[in-house]
């Protein structure tokens, strides 16, 4: 078996030592005292089938993600990775199969209901609210459904306190990552890297239990990759399960506890990065 790296993954990135425990992005998680790496299956996908106009994009796959686990989902272009992610987040309706989250069947639920149960995701294109400031966007997301409820707003019970508390949390998040200076910029005024940060911040600020990431490293300066990866590791250590679609194999090698390889809509390999890197099927899929 050859030990040559897969195309695109030269020496895996070194993540320095044990990162210093950082700030406060996940107050709820930490307060709940969730022990990292608890082995409850957080996400269970079974026989997921997604079709576009009759053609299967995801041809009946099954996978699972546990709390505190970082799972990478890789594969050549057109393998169906994003479609699978979209079906898990609810953006796309599955033709058949099931998605279970924290023990509940959420297959038929629309995205906002899944979000309320503790699922969060980022977008391939680093979506932000173009016409809202970064601060407004984070506030909206952090307050979520409660902030959008007319009855609660009109009745005013605890509104001011909630707003103040959430605002403090948002400022802490921004300060912690040295992004306070972009707080009052509109989404459309942000640079590419700033958009990536905001997209991820919006996913994290709700203290989710499951984080779905769609190519989170695209467009990020190589110098800052380590700190971004440290952040994700810290999030995972706090008990969040992460499913990450990613093309940069060095990132996947450094970050993921487990890697799932898809090609042509099916899973062709699953295991640690080392294991799948040596898999004949995987090499064939990437090189063909």
């Amino acid at each position, binding site marked *: 078996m050859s030990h040559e790296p897969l195309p695109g993954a030269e020496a895996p990135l070194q993540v320095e030592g044990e990162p210093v425990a950082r700030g406060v992005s996940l107050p709820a998680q930490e307060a709940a005292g969730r022990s990292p790496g608890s082995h409850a299956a957080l996400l269970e996908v079974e026989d997921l089938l997604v079709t576009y106009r009759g053609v299967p994009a995801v041809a009946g796959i099954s996978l699972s993600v546990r709390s505190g686990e970082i799972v990478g989902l890789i594969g050549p272009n057109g393998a169906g990775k994003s479609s699978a992610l979209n079906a898990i*987040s609810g*953006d796309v309706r599955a033709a058949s199969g099931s998605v279970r989250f924290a023990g509940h069947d959420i297959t038929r639920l*629309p*995205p*906002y209901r899944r*979000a*309320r149960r503790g699922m*969060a*995701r980022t*977008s391939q294109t680093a*979506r*932000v*609210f*173009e*016409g*809202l*400031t970064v*601060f*407004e*966007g984070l*506030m*909206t*997301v*952090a*307050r*979520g*459904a409660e*902030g*959008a*409820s*007319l009855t609660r*707003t009109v009745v005013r019970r605890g*509104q001011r306190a*909630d*707003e103040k508390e959430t*605002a403090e949390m948002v*400022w802490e998040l921004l300060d912690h990552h*040295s992004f306070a*200076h*972009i*707080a*009052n*910029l*509109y*989404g459309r*005024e942000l*640079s*590419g*890297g*700033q958009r990536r*940060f905001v997209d991820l911040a*919006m*996913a994290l600020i*709700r203290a989710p239990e499951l984080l779905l990431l769609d190519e989170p490293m695209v*467009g*990020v*300066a*190589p*110098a*800052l990759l380590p700190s971004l990866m440290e952040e994700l590791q810290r999030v995972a250590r706090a008990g969040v399960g992460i499913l990450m679609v990613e093309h940069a194999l060095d990132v996947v090698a450094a970050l993921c506890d487990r890697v799932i390889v898809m090609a042509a809509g099916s899973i062709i390999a699953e295991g640690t990065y080392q294991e799948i890197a040596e898999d004949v099927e995987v090499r064939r899929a990437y090189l063909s």
Partner: protein
Amino acid sequence: MQAFVSISLVYLGIYALSAWSLNLQYGYAGIINFGWIVFQAIGAYIAGVTALGTSSGSFQTYILGARLPFPLPLLMGTLAGGVLALVLGALILTRRIRPDFQAVILLVVSIIAAQVVIATPSIFDGSNGLSNIPKPFNGALHLSDQGYQWFYVGWMAVLCIIVFAGLQWLCRTSWGRALKAVREDETLAAYSGINVPLLRVVVFVIGGAIAGFSGALLAEFLGTWSPDAWNFVETFVVFVAVYVGGRGNHVGALLGAFLVPVVFGVMPSFLPEFGYPGLSANLEWIVIALLWLVTFYLRPAGILPERRYVAKRGGASSSASMRPTTPSPAPPTMDEPRTAS
């Protein structure tokens, strides 16, 4: 001369309410209510029939007659606008339809409504419409026609201030912010747990109620209401008002209400007739359409655009105009270095 000022002011109030209603739905929440006029119309009709009493024995035919005292007809008109918005909103806003299709669907609703009303006189007296609608307080105060108009100006001013204050407050809450989020990116808003269709229907209903309110007030001022008063193109005029004045800014909407329907609509009706009868009305539409194209080209955000929410620590905040702020020197950016691409 007095009539010119007083009538213009009353219409300013009516169009201000109209523009605020549409601004809430479209400027803040991004709902393209291209059939807006039908909500004003139903408010006017319901206010009319609930003040006129039953239709038997009258020369007019209509449904739902009642002789309710002030201010009930006004409230009924407002309610009617809200209920119609609830029905249409549930049917149309709860699906994902491309925005231009959604606009045309609502436009078509307003067209069909007009045709059905005209073709079925038993509903609201067809093309004749309702007349002799009682004017509020007219019996109590014994004013001349002109005096009553001035009274109505004051009455409208009070109501407008209340509605304006209410809307400004509402749009500054977290709910108002959620509206803007849904307008900007409904998918992203859904990712944070917001029930987007529900939020849209709620906004639609509030806007519809305000539209109905404006219709009721107008019907009570004019004393009559017929299909001539609610041509589907009127919606376009209110849209232009909001676009020209400033979307997402209620003060801008007020400015737009003055500049577009009042300056170009109401005021010219006082000019002496020129050309053939109907020429000035035709030219009015052309001018408003040109105004829309020019403004949208030169200043797409309007004269008074939505103000940037500037957050400060410790809870204080302020608003600033839309000029982009240059950020202070920042730590190394997260971007990839710009190599030749």
